């Protein structure tokens, strides 16, 4: 029984008092596949007695079934949780692990090695205080080591352990250790300034320099890993920074209490402090710092509190309460570094939702200035950012936000991009600085073409061409369809006889020549509208095949959708909504389609709507389904 166990057994209260006030260190382990990350974490859990007997039993049987260590325990199996990973022997997602010692509680994010999981690694890094970079002593610094240290340092990690692992396989050779450390220090000069690096020679498998100094490395004078992790100072820079708190929730239980709830992002706050709420820039004084169980004399970074003001200042979710003397900046155009995390690439001109603090706004990517090769850290020209690409962009928001540059404040300078269609988190961003409104904006660099216009509307343009007899139900269906598309957030316009013949085509009659000219003009208007990115619903009798073919030829391939509203003449005539059939039969209207002018039914329309069997409502739904199945609403 260790001395810890003895204390637990003898004086549990003393043990608990001591352990209630431990500090917390969050770290990530990263490096290439097979460098031994999972083995190291398994070892830390094992050595800090965080593995129970039943888990050990399961581990032993798993080791025999899937393990890579023969009859020995495969510590990696403790960490690689998902069965798919166990089968493939790799780690595909961040796994969070917990262990504690007398001095600290640790949260470990074990992050994947493969390049295609860089985004998962960034997920782990965003909340870490420290990074352990695993290096295989036989292989030295690899591309992946460089990529991971770049991402870790970009995300603000200032402490790194260079874990030079598998020293047992290089005979614990000091020269190997020295060379790798030197290589890394040279490379690290290109990373952000102020990074502390501790190199430790170790073998996670054999247990060298993990919890105790190893006899195999007498030449190494530094601390073993566990000692370093227990003692490395985690100065919370956030507490020294100016006060910031994004408002998450307005707390209003009754008319007498109005508080603003949030987690203090940086600095501290106490009653009497002058504060400014941004972006409105109104100033007030803090009255109370409320938590359950009694007010605080002072709230500090990291705490979740509720603030009340001395006077009524209109403040809502997403606003940032700041120290009045040192407020955050407010702007709506920025330069930022972005790590793209989605298969669909980031395109300049496209709009995304941007979430920063408790605020969600719409952002348009103006320009991708350049990409950064995460393996060499060199700038490279780029037109788009694909999965796991890193680049520098400029962007504009639909409204101003409060922010600090990311390098000054991780909490108020980091943001995520959310795709407006899929709702997925597609990128992370680090704000560098605000752009001046008039100055260096690159709108002109952006070709606003039909593709961009459609993307902005998040739809594919279409010309839905309804053809059929007078009274067949074309306009009724088109109008219902437009309402439905509108409700889906689609941008549409209906062109029909009523709004075209009374204006643009008021000089045209109903002779065959005029009918052709009518359709020619309508087709051109529809073409312009589809260039503008709209879904255009054209509702015209358009009796002749050749004119409908002309319209089809005019449109971009695939955008023309011919919908034959197939209503028999008897039915249309019976409906006679506008009384036109009656007048035509009476001889008052000449050249009436279906009576004394022909209607040429389409031979191969994209859709046929039978209005006898289905309602206009059902017809509209059918069209939407047809479009959805063909990917019309995915961009």
């Amino acid at each position: 029984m260790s001395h810890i166990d003895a204390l637990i057994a003898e004086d549990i209260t003393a043990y608990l008092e001591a352990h209630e006030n431990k500090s917390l260190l969050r770290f990530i382990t990263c490096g290439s596949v097979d460098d031994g990350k999972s083995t190291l974490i398994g070892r830390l859990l094992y050595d800090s007695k965080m593995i129970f007997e039943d888990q050990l039993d399961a581990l032993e049987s798993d080791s025999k079934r899937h393990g890579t260590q023969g009859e020995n325990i495969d510590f990696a199996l403790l960490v690689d949780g998902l069965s798919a990973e166990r089968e493939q022997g790799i780690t595909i997602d961040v796994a969070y692990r917990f262990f504690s010692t007398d001095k600290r509680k640790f949260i470990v994010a074990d992050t994947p090695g493969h390049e295609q999981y860089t985004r998962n690694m960034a997920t782990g890094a965003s909340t870490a205080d420290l990074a352990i970079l695993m290096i295989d002593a036989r292989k030295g610094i690899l591309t992946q080591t460089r990529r991971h240290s770049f991402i870790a340092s970009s995300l603000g990690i200032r402490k790194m352990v260079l874990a030079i692992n598998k020293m047992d396989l290089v005979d614990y050779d000091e020269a190997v250790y020295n060379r790798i450390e030197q290589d890394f220090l040279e490379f690290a000069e290109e990373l952000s300034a102020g990074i502390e690096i501790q190199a430790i020679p170790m073998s996670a498998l054999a247990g060298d320099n993990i919890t105790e100094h190893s006899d195999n490395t007498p030449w190494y004078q530094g601390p073993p890993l566990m000692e370093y992790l227990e003692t490395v100072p985690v100065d919370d820079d956030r507490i020294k920074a100016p006060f910031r708190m994004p408002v998450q929730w307005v707390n209003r239980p009754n008319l007498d209490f109005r508080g603003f709830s949030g987690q203090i992002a940086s600095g501290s706050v106490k009653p009497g402090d002058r504060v400014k709420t941004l972006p409105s820039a109104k100033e007030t004084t803090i009255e109370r710092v409320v938590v359950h169980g009694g007010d605080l004399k002072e709230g500090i970074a990291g705490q979740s509190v509720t603030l009340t003001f001395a006077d009524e200042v209109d403040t809502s979710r997403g606003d940032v309460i700041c120290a009045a003397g040192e407020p955050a900046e407010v702007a709506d155009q920025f330069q930022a570094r972005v790590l793209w995390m989605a298969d669909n690439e980031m395109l300049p001109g496209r709009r995304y939702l941007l979430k920063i603090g408790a605020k969600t706004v719409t952002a348009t990517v103006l320009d991708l200035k350049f990409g950064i090769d995460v393996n060499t850290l060199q700038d490279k020209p780029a037109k788009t950012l694909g999965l796991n690409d890193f680049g520098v962009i400029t962007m504009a928001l639909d409204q101003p936000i409060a922010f600090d540059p990311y390098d000054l404040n991780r909490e108020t300078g980091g943001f995520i991009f959310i795709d407006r269609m899929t709702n997925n988190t597609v990128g992370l961003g680090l704000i560098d600085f605000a752009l001046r409104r008039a100055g260096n904006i690159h709108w002109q660099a952006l070709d606003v073409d039909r593709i961009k216009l459609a993307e902005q509307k998040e739809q594919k343009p279409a010309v839905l061409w309804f053809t059929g007899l007078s009274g067949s139900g074309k306009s009724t269906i088109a109008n219902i369809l437009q309402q439905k598309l509108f409700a889906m957030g689609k941008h549409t316009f209906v062109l029909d006889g009523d709004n075209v013949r009374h204006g643009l085509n008021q000089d045209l009659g109903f002779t065959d020549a005029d009918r052709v000219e009518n359709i020619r003009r309508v087709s051109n208007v529809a073409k312009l509208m589809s260039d503008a990115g709209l879904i255009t619903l054209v509702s015209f009798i358009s009796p002749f095949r050749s004119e409908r073919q002309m319209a089809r030829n005019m449109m971009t391939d695939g955008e023309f959708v011919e919908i034959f509203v197939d209503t028999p003449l008897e039915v249309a005539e019976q409906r006679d909504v506008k009384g036109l059939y009656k007048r035509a039969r009476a001889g008052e209207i000449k050249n009436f389609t279906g009576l004394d002018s022909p209607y040429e039914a389409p031979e191969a329309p994209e859709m046929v709507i039978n209005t006898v069997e289905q309602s206009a409502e059902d017809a509209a739904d059918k069209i939407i389904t047809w479009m959805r199945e063909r990917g019309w609403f995915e961009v």
Partner: protein
Amino acid sequence: MWGKTNLDQNWANSVTSLTHLDRLEAEAIHIIREVAAVAENPVMLYSVGKDSAVMLHLAVKAFYPSIPPFPLMHVDTTWKFREMIEFRNRKAKELGMDLIVHSNQEGIEAGVGPFTHGSSRHTDIMKTQALKQALDLHKFDVAFGGARRDEEKSRAKERVFSFRTADHRWDPKNQRPELWNLYNARINQGESIRCFPISNWTELDIWQYIRREQIEIVPLYFAGKRPVVEWEGSLIMVDDDRVPEELAKTAVEKSVRFRTLGCYPLTGAVESTAATLEDIIQETLLTNSSERQGRTIDRDQAASMEKKKQEGYF
């Protein structure tokens, strides 16, 4: 009642950094508030266990002086310990929160229970199916759960905001990146989110926090004389007359307590004399087997939890 925190003492001494419990608490409160602010129709799944007790306490703290702006929901398999039900009803009333209790009526009518249908069918019908029914019935878009990442290997990889498809499935290979404390709670029609505010807590953290905050928990966690029988390798309590007669006849009084609480026939008791929180923590720290060992459902097969989760188990 809710305990007074020791924050005052802390701040009086002008503490400049937070302890691990302070940080876990602040993180959980942030997560709970975020859901309240963005969800259209959130609910807190309340299992009446110690993790739920901590989660509920955190919710109360998050919104003080307001009452948490969402209801509690208990999926009642009808096989829970009677003491749990009493505790649940009293707690909701004390806090002034709405309590929704849902049971699978078809399951009840079919007489489903662990003794007759086995643990895995019982759990599937009365717990997993019942939960899906309840979420569909009330159209909740976000449901809080008290799961922790240290409980089990597949949970170690789950996000705090965990997405479920319209048929409640979890896709472990397609999880959204979760950066900083910026949670993306946007979903499409029919999808939902399970949100785990105490993801980063360990079992020891839970106990320490219960002790620090003096949070009331169901007395079954403390040792007491209870009638128990041996069934399928576990010591289970005879909580009512639905235990088969043959089995019930073998009951003996023993001093036992429970490390987790669920359906009484599926919850193994441990012999113990731990009567105070300190005793329990002491036992927990010195024990040799992990918490879930008492739960029969996890032992069925390797990676069983991951499989159950993909199917919609919480």
